[in-house]
Every structure is written in structure tokens, then in C-alpha cells.
């Protein structure tokens, strides 16, 4: 199986190299990536996922949302805080209370008492 996949893969790559020219030209070209926003958001997401385990989901989630809204969406501070808090509360009630999914509480574990 692995060998046959590798062989087929080689053949298709060759086909792709050969036919390279016409297929892309007439398609609509997607936006060029805004690398600053891209890297900023990647960094935010990585920090958020890393923070979920140690610091706790219910600090990581609202902070991630707030910084994304504020830095990327250019939304006012008050509105950003409000949306992030409402949404975090929603996650808490659906996942933790209703569905009983044990999200890591991190440093809040005493307080959230689970």
C-alpha cells in the first residue's frame, strides 16, 4: 500500500509539472495574503491553544477572542469585551454544563469547582 501510493504520487506530480500552464491563468486570483495579519493571528491562536492546558480555557478563550476582535477586527474595546464574554459564557454553559465536557480549567479550577 505505501509503495503504491508513492508510485501514484510520483506519477501525478509529474502530470502536474507537465500541465502546469493553462489551469491557473483564467481562474480568479485569490486575495494576496496579508502576511502581517496572518502571522499575528497564527501567533494569537498558538498562544491560545497553549494557554488552554496550563492557564485554563476560560481565561484563554475570552482573551483570544478579545485580542482577535480588537487587533484584527478593529472593533471598539467595550464591544470586543462584551462579545467575548457573552460567547465564553455560551461555551461554558453548552459544553461544560449541558454536555459535561471537561474543559481544562487551569488556574481557575478551584473557582469553577469541577
Amino acid at each position, binding site marked *: 500500500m505505501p509503495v503504491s501510493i508513492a508510485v501514484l504520487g510520483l506519477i501525478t506530480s509529474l502530470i502536474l509539472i507537465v500541465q502546469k500552464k493553462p489551469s491557473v491563468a483564467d481562474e480568479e486570483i485569490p486575495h494576496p*495574503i*496579508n502576511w502581517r*495579519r496572518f502571522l499575528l493571528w497564527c501567533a494569537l491562536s498558538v498562544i491560545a491553544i497553549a494557554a488552554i492546558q496550563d492557564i485554563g480555557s476560560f481565561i484563554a*478563550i475570552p482573551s483570544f477572542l478579545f485580542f482577535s476582535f480588537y487587533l484584527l477586527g478593529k472593533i471598539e474595546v467595550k464591544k470586543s469585551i462584551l462579545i467575548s464574554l457573552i460567547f465564553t459564557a455560551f461555551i461554558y454553559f453548552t*459544553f461544560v454544563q449541558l454536555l459535561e465536557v471537561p474543559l481544562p480549567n487551569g488556574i481557575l479550577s478551584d473557582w469553577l469547582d469541577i
Partner: protein
Amino acid sequence: MDNVLIALSNLASIDAVITLLIGTLAGMMIGMLPGLSSTMGVALCIPITFNMPPELALILLGAVYVSSVYGGSITAILLRTPGTDASIATALDGYPLASKGRGSEAIGMATLSSLFGGTVSVIILIAVAPLLSKIALAFGPQEYALLAIFGLVTIIGVVSDNPAKGLVAALAGLALGLVGLDSFTGVPRFTFGHSELFDGVPLLPVLIGLFSVSQAFNLCIPAEAGVLKKDSIVNVHGHLPLISDIKRCFRSMARSSLIGTFIGALPGAGTSIAAFISYNEARRKSKNPENFGKGELEGIAASESANNAVTGGTLIPTLTLGIPGNAVTAVFVGGLTIHGMIPGPDLFTNFADITYTLLISLLIANVLFAVMGIALSKYLVNVTKIPGSILGPIILIFSIVGTYALRNELFDVWLAAAFGLIGYFMERWKYPTAPLVIALILGPILEVNFRRSMQISNWDYSTFFDSYLSLAIISLVVLSVAYPLWKAWQKKR
């Protein structure tokens, strides 16, 4: 007939109606959230059913099952974040419609075809369940291996303008499918010492990554992105599909429902394959195949009627033979045994009244989710007006929490994030993502059944040409490869 009457009287009680309502609503919610699959929904309900009378318990499980499959289509259409693999094909045409402001119409079509597919499959389940399950049992490893190949060929053909790119994506999926403990020898392959990978690359994190996380990036990275395209207005064509559209799609719906029921009855074949095979058939038979993938209501009709038809289909071997075809029905079997009912022929004799209650409640659940879906679609479509920089982070958080909820494993979350990036760039470079996911599902099915048939036949390849069934599938494979090639050749001349 008596049993049907008893079943109807069971369903006429207030308790039954409330259970049905709650089950349907909960199922729709579960289907909409990424990461919460039908399996998880049904599994979560089992502890709740402990103290219920058996007929109510089955009504709840059935309602959650059928409506969660439907619920997945709503987010697939509006946000292109299919909650389960069943709705990937729906997103292909649903999302382009939503970005044109026709999301509500698309949901309407998805609702009607789900209702149609679900109803047809339950009627078939009631009418010919024992017969169909016999055919399904005739599928040996040879046939399964060939069916997996058929699925792969179909999916590569369906999604891309450039089949070579589709093939590359599918090969990547097949390669990922190799990871995990070898199912014959138990040797870990390509796991690099990660115990999390012993069961193989988990499907849902990959699915959530490739579709939901990459969509979050799509919405968040460009400064002023959103689901709706700049000049489109929501509901400009009204919020329901036109009667003429429904008429046009009716043949596809009927065909897809049959395909869905049959594939559902095959243990292990899966919902997404049924949806994609039906989608491909609809495109092949359509007068304007070039519209597929750009916002064609018929594509939604095909995929949705097929994936909801699978729900009835999977219950055929489950109820008649006690062989669950997929993870959801395996949980279902658990639910049945808790209440002292052993799946198998007994269900249609000793427990016939309860079984028929379940079957009829499935029909009613189909109608219920259709009514709720159509009533809500007008409002739900407003989600597409929210700017991308708000939707993106929210989708990402849902994806993270949903992925974590699957196995409480942070590894899965990292995996989903990585596949999100892969999916984002695959899409930019015009590599279709759907073949990767489908190949990841089909790869292990193909490998296990191929090796099994080789062992049975002592490495004699002619075993694949021994039965009529396998010959039929082989001719389907050859047809689906040859037909597009022939058409392209004709076009050139």
C-alpha cells in the same frame, strides 16, 4: 398492522411528543456545532434514557440521530463549516449560494431533501428491511475493497476542475490513512512514538481543521472579509426555493435517496460516500454540470437527500441482524440492549410494537426538523451578515473546543490547527480538500478489505472478478473513469 396501531397510540401521548420535540431540537443543535457528531449526540443521550420506558428512550435516540445529520447541513451551507463528514458535499454548493445571499433558499432545499431522503429510507426500512440486509451481507471483503475504490474515483472526479490535483489530495489522505497500528499484525506504522496516533490519524480533527479552521482563516485574514460577497443582498430571491426548482431537483432527490439507503445498509460504508456518489450522479445527469460547485441547488438536494437516507439505511442491518453499520448505530445497539431488547429478528416479532414506534417516530422526527428548519432558515441566514473578523475567531474557538471535546486530548487540537493551515493553503493553491478527508476514511476500509480478500484467496487476484456484485462495481469504476475522459476527448474534437 396491529403493531402499527399500537405504535401510533404510543406516539400520541404527551410524553412522546415532548420527547420527540426535545430530541429533534437537541439533535439539530448537536449537528450544527462543529466537532459534535451524531455519534456523540446519541451517546450523550443514552444515560438520560436509563430511567425512561423503552419506547420513549428509542424515540429520543432516533430523533437525535436523524436531526443531527440534518443540522450539520445548516452550518455547512451558511459558514462552510460542516459539523460532520456527511455534510461536506452539501457545503460545495451551499456555501457559494450563501455568499450570494441565497443561504435561506439553500437551507430550504437542504431541508426538503433531507425530509425526502429520510422519509424514503424509513419507508424502505419498514417495507423491505430483511431483504435488503441479505443483499448487504453478500458484500464480502472483495466487494468492500472495490466499493472503496469506487468511492475514491468518484470523489476525485467530483470536486476538482483538475483531476490531477484531486488525486494528489486523495493520495495525501490515503497516506495519512496508513498511520496507526497495522490492523493485521499490530505493528505501529508512522506513529513516530505518539500513542495518540495508534488508532490512526483521527478523522474529526482533520475534518474540522481542513474545513472549519481554514474557513476561520479565510474570514479573518483579509481585512474586510465576510461570508456575503460585497454586492449581494440577503433573501433577494425570497427565502424559500421556488416550486420549479424543487420540481427540477426531484429526480436527483429520488435517486439519491435510493443510493443513500442502499449504501447506508452496507455496514461500514459511511454517510459521506453516499453523499458524494449521489452528488456525482446528479452532476453527471444534470443539464448544466458546470454549475455544480458554484451554487447549484440540485447539488444540495442530491447530497442532503442521500445523507439523510443513510440514517434509515444504517438502521436496516442494525435492527434486522444486530450488525451496526457505523459508530452511531453501534451506540444505538447499546441503547437497545440496556432496555432488554437484543437487536435481531426478535425486534420484529417479540418487540414489534416498540420497534414500530421507533420507526414511525423517525418519520415524525423528519417532519419536525423540516418544519423547524424552514421556519428558522429565514433568521439563521442573517449569520452571513456578520463581518468575517467576528465570525472567524468564533468559528476557531468552536473548532478548538469541539475538537478537544472529542477525546479530551490537546493533541487533537494541535492536529486540527495544523490541518487548518494546510487546508488554507490547499484552497489558495486550488487543491480540493474533500478528497483528502474521504480518502482518509476510505483508505483503511480499502486496505483492510484488500488484504483480507488476498488472504482468503491465497494472493489470487482473480478473486475480485468472481462474483456478479464485484463485477458490477468494477464496471461502475471503469465507467466513472472512462466517461469523463471520453467526454473531454469529444469536446476537444
